[in-house]
């Protein structure tokens, strides 16, 4: 029996036809949104110019705003892997994009909802609408950092469109907050911004990534929840897999290390990662990291969601203690792009919050991580001594 991987060769799937939006199996939710706006039921926040139009799964075009974005942050990114969020902001700053990093933002609360069910459709839609209204009031457009927030908001948008009673209840709650019911024209994930900016990122690249092999883990809630909104590109996997993340990795000259469990989730599980981690650890290492190691032997795993970075990275310590075939650092696409453009690995990318050893990867990127850490330690001493209160953006680029 052959021991070769049994997944479909990429050459075969590249023959797939480009989808025709006229034959899309799902409705275009944006048209229904505009109908509801015409009927006075809600306000649709338009994608501001400049934007780039990209193809989604069924051939429709989606507008991705470049500038004037309102950053809907992620609990898990900001809390436990803050170099993820910092890298997103750093990239926006590098390209001179104006953005809002709001304090008038709550979590989408979807992690908790998927984990514990201690909420309901009305509350979830009201939380989403409150955040959307907060963004609308600033004139900046929502850019969602978390894959689960992105997926959940797409579901919530569909529920608001299809269920008048839900709409009425949410509108009543919003009225108590003195806010209108707002729904953005497009729900946009930050990785879509990185995807459309990938050539500009490559133009500004200062580090050679051509010797790096990266395996991609696509986030379930990015492309499995309301699948028709995810970006697909005929030139990437023949349009048969989502193009985000992979597009960036190819643009910066790295090799994509394909593997047979690409479609598997990371094992996050929402409640499992918090209270039943034996499942998360087992799945992340046995179904993802070990398979990647055996079939692609990557230098790094690149993904685009909070839970995926957390689960794939943090789960490897226990597996390594059992001599399993693990040991691949895990980064978000934002961190990978920032490093390519010369970001400091600790001041910006904040790799000290990650668990799996990343030093060999940094060396392959041409980064003297010992010197970088010494620089960061000197920053910490300046903060401790009271010379500076916080590390500033100027310090980060010093």
């Amino acid at each position: 029996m052959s021991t070769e991987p049994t997944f479909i060769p990429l050459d075969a799937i590249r023959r797939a036809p480009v989808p025709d939006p006229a034959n899309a199996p799902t409705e275009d939710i944006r048209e229904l949104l505009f109908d509801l706006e015409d009927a006075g039921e809600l306000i649709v926040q338009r994608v501001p110019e400049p934007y780039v139009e990209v193809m989604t799964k069924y051939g429709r075009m989606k507008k991705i705003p470049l500038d004037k974005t309102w950053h809907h942050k992620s609990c898990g990114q900001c809390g436990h892997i803050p170099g993820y969020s910092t890298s997103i902001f750093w990239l926006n700053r590098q390209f001179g994009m104006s953005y809002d990093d709001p304090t008038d933002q709550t979590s989408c609360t979807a992690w908790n909802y998927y984990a514990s069910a201690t909420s309901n459709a009305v509350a979830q839609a009201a939380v989403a609408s409150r955040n959307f209204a907060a963004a609308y009031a600033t004139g900046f457009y929502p850019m969602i950092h978390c894959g689960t927030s992105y997926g959940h908001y797409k579901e919530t948008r569909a529920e608001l469109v299809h269920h008048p009673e839900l709409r009425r209840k949410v509108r009543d709650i919003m009225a108590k907050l003195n806010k209108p019911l707002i729904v953005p024209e497009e729900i946009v994930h930050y990785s879509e911004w990185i995807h459309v900016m990938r050539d500009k990122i490559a133009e500004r690249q200062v580090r050679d990534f051509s010797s790096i092999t990266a395996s991609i883990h696509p986030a379930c809630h990015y492309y499995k929840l309301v699948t028709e909104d995810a970006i697909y590109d005929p030139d990437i996997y023949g349009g048969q897999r989502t193009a985000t993340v992979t597009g960036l990795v190819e643009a910066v000259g790295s090799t994509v290390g394909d593997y047979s469990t690409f479609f598997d989730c990371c094992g996050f599980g929402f409640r499992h990662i918090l209270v039943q981690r034996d499942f998360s650890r087992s799945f992340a290492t046995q179904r993802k990291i070990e398979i990647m190691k055996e079939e692609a032997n990557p230098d790094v795993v690149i993904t685009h969601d909070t839970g995926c970075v957390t689960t794939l990275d943090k789960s490897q310590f226990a597996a390594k203690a059992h001599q399993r075939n693990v040991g691949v650092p895990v980064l978000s696409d934002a961190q990978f792009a920032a490093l390519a453009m010369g970001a400091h690995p600790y001041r910006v990318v904040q790799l000290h919050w990650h668990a799996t050893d990343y030093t060999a990867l940094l060396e392959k990127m041409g980064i003297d991580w010992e010197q970088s850490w010494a620089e960061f330690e000197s920053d910490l001493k300046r903060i401790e001594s009271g010379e500076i209160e916080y590390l500033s953006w100027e310090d980060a680029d010093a």
Partner: protein
Amino acid sequence: MSTMAPPMPFTADRGATLAPNSYVDVPYEEKLRLWEEVKSDDRFPDYLYGCYDCGICVAACPSAKYYDFSPRKIAQAAAREDVELIYEQMNDDVWNCSQCFSCNRCPRQNSPGGLITLLREVSVKNGLASAKDALEGYGRVVYKIMTTGTQISPDMLQPDAFPDWGPDVEKTSDNLDLWRRALPPETLHTTETSWVVSDETLIELYLIWLHSDVMDIIKEADEGLHMIILDVMEETLEDAGYEV
């Protein structure tokens, strides 16, 4: 399927499992009531369109690989309205789901993961013992998200909470305040929340909880937790001039 006469605890109709009914002490009418509550959710028709029994959802399901769990059985039981089996699943199966929605690959456009969301919601709302068991140890997360507006705070990174994540957790915990101050974005200089959430924003979040029946759900799930969260919310809202 008729809802008048309860089926026998063990019948061929329950062929998906052929297991004996573990919940014979619970009246059929109560199981039926819960199922009707699931079906009454506006989202239910969007999650179930029948089932080919093809097993694509099972092949895609991460939980099916590690637990005695099957999204196909969830969809099948719901499609047949097998009230007895659905009650068993509400107690024994639904908390194994990873909520990744890999099962949305269903060629009939079913969402077994979506059905499970509804089954879990009804379980919690009705205070099922299995739901309380599943949420044991989870209260601090519910407290955090409901009272602060962010779920995962930096100060949750404690070595005793995440011993399997290695020694770096202790290093992070020991240096937490300093490392947070070494983050360039101004909103991230926090240890008790993921980012700075304004007081006005928090008040609006509390009003959403109060006006959307969420507090009733929390009360059924954990009365003590409900009291603690309500205290925090009431104090903040009363200070801001709201009558609670």
